């Protein structure tokens, strides 16, 4: 799937040798990856491997210190997350990018409020927004009590669902999800995985970051493994087994022993 397709249509996102320094800390030291339309790329790696940093460069939050970044074959340099949004890249950040004091509805539509009316009286139809929010949240399996409730009073998982529902609702070309399922219950997790599948079917590219190899294997087409700021390699689903992937992710650490002790159920 990898090479033959990418020759015909350029990948919707491609990065080559991306480098990112924070002061003296080297978070990414030359990472390359790409994702095409209708494909789910799973980004795997140990804690601190640089996954979040990589997707932050893709979504315009941080500017890379070096390397190339192409969207649909054309080099781009996003100066703000707005640019990425305008280019059709929607992101669920690991820290969710929500304002605790604001209501669910206002957070859901933040930055992309639908307006109506003529200029001097142009306003946002918050009633309509609330309906959309309630509906989208219901789709993901959360019945919110009141869309005007402050996001700060939601549980960790509920908050994550708001972020995911928002990204899916506004996603255009690429959907990036940074550990979306980490705080989710069983039902919500299945729902999110189903979403990813749906989004892929619609022809969007998806970048899915997770630590759960089973989740990754359930929806992913290709897997890119990061370690200490470097790419360890990219694998087609057909090329690698769940166990191999797990070992690779953990960087060969003393994983076997423990998972054996605990009955191999990780």
């Amino acid at each position, binding site marked *: 799937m990898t090479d033959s397709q990418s020759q015909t249509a350029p990948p919707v996102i491609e990065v080559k040798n991306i480098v990112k320094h924070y002061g003296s800390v080297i978070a990414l030291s030359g990472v390359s990856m790409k994702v095409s339309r209708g494909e789910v790329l799973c980004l795997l790696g140990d804690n601190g491997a640089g996954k979040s940093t990589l997707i932050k460069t893709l979504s315009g939050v941080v500017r890379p210190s070096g390397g190339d970044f192409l969207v649909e074959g054309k080099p781009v340099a996003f100066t*703000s*997350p707005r640019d990425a949004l305008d280019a059709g890249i929607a992101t669920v950040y690991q820290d*969710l990018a*929500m*304002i605790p004091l*604001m209501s669910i509805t206002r957070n859901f539509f933040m930055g992309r409020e639908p307006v109506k009316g003529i200029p001097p009286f142009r306003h946002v139809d918050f009633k309509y927004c609330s309906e959309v929010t309630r509906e989208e949240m219901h789709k993901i399996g959360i019945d919110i009590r009141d869309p005007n409730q402050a996001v700060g009073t939601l549980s960790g998982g509920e908050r994550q669902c708001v972020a995911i529902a928002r990204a899916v609702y506004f996603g255009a070309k690429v959907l990036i999800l940074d550990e979306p399922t980490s705080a989710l219950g069983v039902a919500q997790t299945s729902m999110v995985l189903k979403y990813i599948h749906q989004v892929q079917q619609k022809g969007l590219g998806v970048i899915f970051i997770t630590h759960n190899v089973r989740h990754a294997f359930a929806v992913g087409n290709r897997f890119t493994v990061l370690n200490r700021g470097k790419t360890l390699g990219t694998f087609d689903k057909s090329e690698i087994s769940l166990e191999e992937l797990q070992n690779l992710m953990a960087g060969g650490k003393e994983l076997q022993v423990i998972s054996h002790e605990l009955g191999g159920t990780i």
Partner: protein
Amino acid sequence: MAPIEQKIGDASNSDERIKQVGFLTHMMRRPELGAVAGLILVVTFFFLTADRSMFSLSGVMTILAPASQLGILAIAAALLMIGGEFDLSIGSMVAFAGLIFGAALTNFGQPLWISIIITMLLAAAMGAVNGQIVIRTRLPSFIVTLAFLFILRGLTLVGLKWATGGSTQLRGIGEVVGDGLLKRLFSGVAFQDLFSWLAAHGLIEKFDNGVPKVTGVPVSVVWFIAIAGLATWVLLRTRSGNWVFAAGGDPNSARNSGVPVDRVKTGLFALTACAAALVAIITVLDAGSTDARRGFQKEFEAIIAAVIGGCLLTGGYGSAIGAFFGAIIFGLVSIGLTYTKFDSDWFQVFLGSMLLLAVLFNNFIRRKVTGER
């Protein structure tokens, strides 16, 4: 094994996890309605201690006039605070804009409308500069605008001396501005006809010569109410309003969601400066003069009013209508004391105590009603 009660929640709108709340409770949950409670407390206090003339029509107008001037600043300051920034230079901006306006009229002999436009444009530009410095350098706005507090105050002094040839007071503005519609938009009183009619029919008090004691509503009050209404609408109903809350609540998250935080903040700084310029124009036209001390410490009064009105100093929460009531409370306390028999030496003690009581009461009511712990 314990018995399992498998109660699966349905997706209907009524949720068993919500207690019923009354309409009143719902209303009281709005940030500004605590300020109303504070207002009631303060009014009650004065009703018990002050001269009756305080609550006459003219008494109310004498309180509203200063409250409205403060209020225009307070609403702008509240918007800026919700957007997560401060502007300590608005007091100095009142003086500086007053100088520009006065000098344009007298020294340069410009007509009123040009003078107003020049003043507004210059104020907006200065505000935007403030904002840009804050954004580019990521220094706290407190320190940047504090520098402008000094700079603008100093420039006003220098400018006044230059404009007047050595004095710190620029007078004679009333003479150069003729009467006209534009002037009446910014000074004097509105609804004069209505009040004359009311007086003629004995509905309001009048002097022996038949002139009503209150000839109308000061225009600053009209501006105040209009601005409060407009700001409330913008905050609650428009996209820009949502961006203001977002920019103040968490600028990083807002930026990550595509809100143009820098543009919002710069706009708010310009807006605040324009509010200061408006107050300057109103007071200069009303007084016919300006001096180097105009607007002194108004920045703090504006912030106080906004905070009494329920704005969070850390940004992201508050309301324009709260600042509206906050300004009225502040005006009421500071003018109201002159209607009481307390010795003026105690003025500050009372001012402080009333402020504290008003916010405490406001807070107490809000917590009681909303059941926060």
